[in-house]
């Protein structure tokens, strides 16, 4: 339509809400989507991209007060669409102890790292998928029960139950770890 490069440029500059969303949420969303998609970074990238495209179609005023919640919700729905389309949904059904990682003890580390954090992260990776998701939404992305409920379509009660179960399991595992 309009082929003036300047016009195009202006169009790009204008998307301040989308820019903000990309700047703030692209990386967390990509991580979130990658986990939802079982480690498929390429598809996760598409899903995140698609999330931002959908954001562009929204009136800013309708989403800007709860931007984070909005993009996470859409991203999750898109990821599930992808899984459903490919018949992979069953892999991530609730309660299934899907292991996305194989974390072995690893000797000979040379990089500085906080071992305690490492242990905790490894334990989280061993939780069932739905628990991991809620734990991360809660403690990594800072969402409230209510927001997590809106993002995941789980009831608030269910979110509370999943979190409680996960924290209980982690507490037990953490206590069992040799210091």
């Amino acid at each position, binding site marked *: 339509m309009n082929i003036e490069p300047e016009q195009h440029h202006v169009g790009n500059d204008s998307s301040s809400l989308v820019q*903000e969303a990309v700047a703030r949420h692209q990386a967390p969303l990509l991580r979130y989507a990658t986990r939802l998609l079982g480690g498929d970074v390429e598809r996760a990238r598409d899903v995140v991209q698609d999330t931002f495209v959908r954001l562009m*179609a929204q009136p800013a005023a309708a989403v800007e007060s709860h931007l984070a919640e909005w993009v996470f919700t859409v991203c999750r729905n898109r990821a599930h669409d992808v899984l459903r389309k490919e018949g992979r949904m069953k892999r991530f059904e609730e309660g299934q102890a899907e292991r996305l990682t194989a974390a072995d003890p690893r000797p000979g580390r040379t990089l500085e790292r906080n071992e305690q954090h490492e242990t905790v992260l490894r334990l989280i990776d061993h939780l069932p998928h739905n628990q991991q998701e809620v734990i991360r939404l809660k403690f990594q992305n800072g969402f409230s029960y209510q927001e997590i409920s809106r993002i995941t379509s789980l009831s608030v009660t269910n979110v509370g139950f999943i979190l409680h179960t996960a924290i209980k399991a982690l*507490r037990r595992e953490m206590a069992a770890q040799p210091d």
Partner: protein
Amino acid sequence: MENEEMMQNTLLPDDPRLTAYALDEMEPAERMEFEKQLQQDATARQMVAEIRATVASLANALADEPISLSMPAAEGERSVAHAAIIPGRDFRRLDGGPLVPEGMLGKKIKFPHFYYLVSGLAAACFAVFFVYWQRTAPLHENKKYLEVPLTAANSTGEAGGIKVELHTAIPAAEESGSLLSVQVDRASYAAIRRFIQQGQRPPVNAVKIEELVNYFPYDYAGPERAGSKGEFSGPPFAAHLEVASAPWAPEHWLVRIGLKGREVSEAARLAANGTLVAIAKEVSMQVKFNPVVVQAYRLIGYEHRSLAKDDFNRDSITAGEIGAGRMVTALYEVVPVGIEMPVASGVDALKYQMAKADYPNSKARNPGSTEMLTVQIRYQDPVGNGRNQLEFPLYDKGTRFADATEDFKFASSVAAFGMILRDSPYKGLATLADVAAWGRAGVGRDAGGYRNEFIGMVERSKRLLQ
């Protein structure tokens, strides 16, 4: 008998309310009820304490978790490099261990890969430097406009505990470097909410009042919408000015400036290749206070900016460009002429600006009335270079806080909450009980429940601040 009752009341470890309580996710009524039960039940209290401890180490560990996996080449080596330097991951695995596409699991880095790792690290160092450079450079370049940058956006790394934000690297190509955008970040709100939910008082530098205030949508009408063909007439912004007595210092005025960008039609959005539509660019907003009635004023928030950087007046805001439908809210506390300056009561007067004598002649425009201030907005149309200027004068009508609009009351409540969390000397008479009361008075329709959630958070924080 009593024993039996206590047995019945004993909380089981499976009770999810233990976690909800530990995370401050309970409604006040339920919380009170639950606390009664806890008082009877030492084991349950112990469980709550353990949950809190677990949660603390979870949050800390997750804050350290790598945020990016790997990204397309365009966004660069920075992201890939992040993956390579992730602490707590298996560095022998190219992408850090977890989240590996299954085929990759267990593959160790071969010798040539080591070079990639090293170059990745180098790229990471460069990327980190570059991001900081990108973030700081424009502030200086724009000094001719910049008094108060509305892009508080990139400073979120300061907000204690939300380290992850720091990794949320903005793709360098997207930062034009010369324009600041109208964003007021809202991340501070999520950060303090998280602290409070976890039973901690948020650290002072995590509390950014301007971000808290701008977290909430307000009921500002935009200017006239586009015509059927997407053409516009009239200004691209509407300004919503309001003044009433400041609730925490009734002898002062509180001024609310709400700016709302014009909404555009879906058709116009599509015509702009699907991106949001710029309605104005090179936007700068300046507030001029009339020294006839205003002695001094201060912009509320922006305290995290160091004084050294504040060698400019705090009376103008550069918004770069403004997208359709965006809104921004700024609050000023104003000391009227004839009132003792707060410096007398120990407040750092440097934060206050004295009204200057160069106020435009308002009498000529509005004989018989005295303006308190004028908001001047300069902007360019998205296409073209002509400069436009809009002026919005504000008159004091002696409005009491109690008679202010709901939006005004709610924004005041949020600002006062921020000042209390910061233990700001400006908080005046405000207590948390006041904050909650003002918030309730301003709760309005509360679509989405955000305002009610805020009030709940204020209630919960009472225990933390005592």
